[in-house]
């Protein structure tokens, strides 16, 4: 037991450690922020040490709360799964950029088995992940149905209508773009027709917005539904699997990029007229950064879901 310091040893009250409360998640801060702030002031007013140990304790605790999320465990499992869903959407955007930038790369580098293996692995894993995510959505359908029957439609209506409107627009834009492309020469389709390039970039931005809008529908629905433990367990497993798959796909992409970049950098842009002489293609660098970021977000989401489900299991078991 430490002895209480004398009045002479007491420090002047300063707001120092309280500023670290900003590191906590907003929801946690709204609930406990004032109390924790009052406690820190009490500790300071009593002349106790609020030096690096207290600050380290606050930083560590804030990091733990950030990793853990807030609220009840079942809500946190769904929150973690939603985070993985957002990460997957970002990852898909990165993957689409890689695919578009390097399309027809096999024509330039047809006999490279290592690059082909890495690229094939990437495609196989992405199909498997899409199937797993579809499975996750399928097991959630009964909970979504219960939400709709309980009058939950107004809570997700705005997002669903927005995503639907975007989907209709993307379909119409795709049809128009395909018809336009059919009238152009291969060179015109690959960068020589600047008006077509501008239209294609607008279409890509619209498609990305549409993907993010449906992800927002999924995330919003996840916060509204009530799932049983079996479904939550499935979501937790899927979140972990998707995070691991994303790490593997990021590694496969980087391996493919390195191999092709060393042997034929021009193939990274499909060997087109716009072929970059260096392996450091700006679009690929952006896509790789997006994929790495998405993988990190997915890892955080999967860990959150796993921890919350473990806590939920303990809570239920111990009643």
């Amino acid at each position, binding site marked *: *037991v*430490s002895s209480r310091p004398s009045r002479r040893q007491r420090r002047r009250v300063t707001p120092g*450690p309280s500023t670290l409360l900003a590191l906590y998640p907003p929801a*946690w801060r709204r*609930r*406990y922020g*004032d*109390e*924790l*702030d*009052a*406690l*820190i002031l*009490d*500790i300071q007013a*009593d002349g106790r040490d609020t030096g690096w*140990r*207290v600050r*380290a*304790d*606050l*930083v*560590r*605790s*804030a990091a*733990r*709360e950030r990793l853990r999320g807030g609220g*009840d*465990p079942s809500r946190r499992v769904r929150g973690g799964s939603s985070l993985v869903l957002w990460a997957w959407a970002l990852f898909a955007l990165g993957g689409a950029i890689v695919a578009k930038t390097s399309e027809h790369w096999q024509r330039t580098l047809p006999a490279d088995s290592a690059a082909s293996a890495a690229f094939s692995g990437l495609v196989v894993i992405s199909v498997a992940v899409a199937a797993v995510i579809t499975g996750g959505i399928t097991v959630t359908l009964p909970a979504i149905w219960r939400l709709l029957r309980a009058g939950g439609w107004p809570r997700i209506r705005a997002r669903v209508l927005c995503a639907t409107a975007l989907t209709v627009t993307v379909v119409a834009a795709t049809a128009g773009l395909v018809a336009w492309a059919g009238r152009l020469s291969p060179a015109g389709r690959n960068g020589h027709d600047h008006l077509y390039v501008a239209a294609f970039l607008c279409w890509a931005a619209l498609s990305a917005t549409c993907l993010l809008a449906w992800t927002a529908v999924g995330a919003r629905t996840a916060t509204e539904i009530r799932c049983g433990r079996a479904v939550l367990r499935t979501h937790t497993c899927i979140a972990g699997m998707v995070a691991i798959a994303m790490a593997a796909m990021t590694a496969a992409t980087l391996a493919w990029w390195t191999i092709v970049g060393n042997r034929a950098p021009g193939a990274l842009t499909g060997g087109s007229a716009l072929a970059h002489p260096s392996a450091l293609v700006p679009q690929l660098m952006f896509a790789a950064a997006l994929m790495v970021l998405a993988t990190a977000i997915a890892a955080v989401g999967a860990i959150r879901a796993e921890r919350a489900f473990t806590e939920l299991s*303990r*809570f239920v078991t*111990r009643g």
Partner: protein
Amino acid sequence: VSSTRARSNDPPLLILTSLASGEKHGYALLQDIEQFAGVVLGPGTLYGAIARLEERRLIEPVDESGRRRPYRLTAAGARELSDTLAELRMITDEGGRRLAARTSFAGGGA
């Protein structure tokens, strides 16, 4: 507090033990825990444990308003504390028995 992590310096266990003698706010909890267990909890650790315990409805705030909000043990919290202490007692009793047997064996052999 979990049966797999029942340790005498486990923050949730210390908080439940402290609240067993009556409601307390954050600083009173820190002082009490330091006095009876000799453990100085950091403010972040204390409120992290309070948040878990409140989520599991083992403790509850007495007053819903104010910056120095006192907490008290719920009936579920009292049961949890009782179960955990029983587990700890079982371990200390077993440890004591084994030590005593070891001592008597060593004494008999000398």
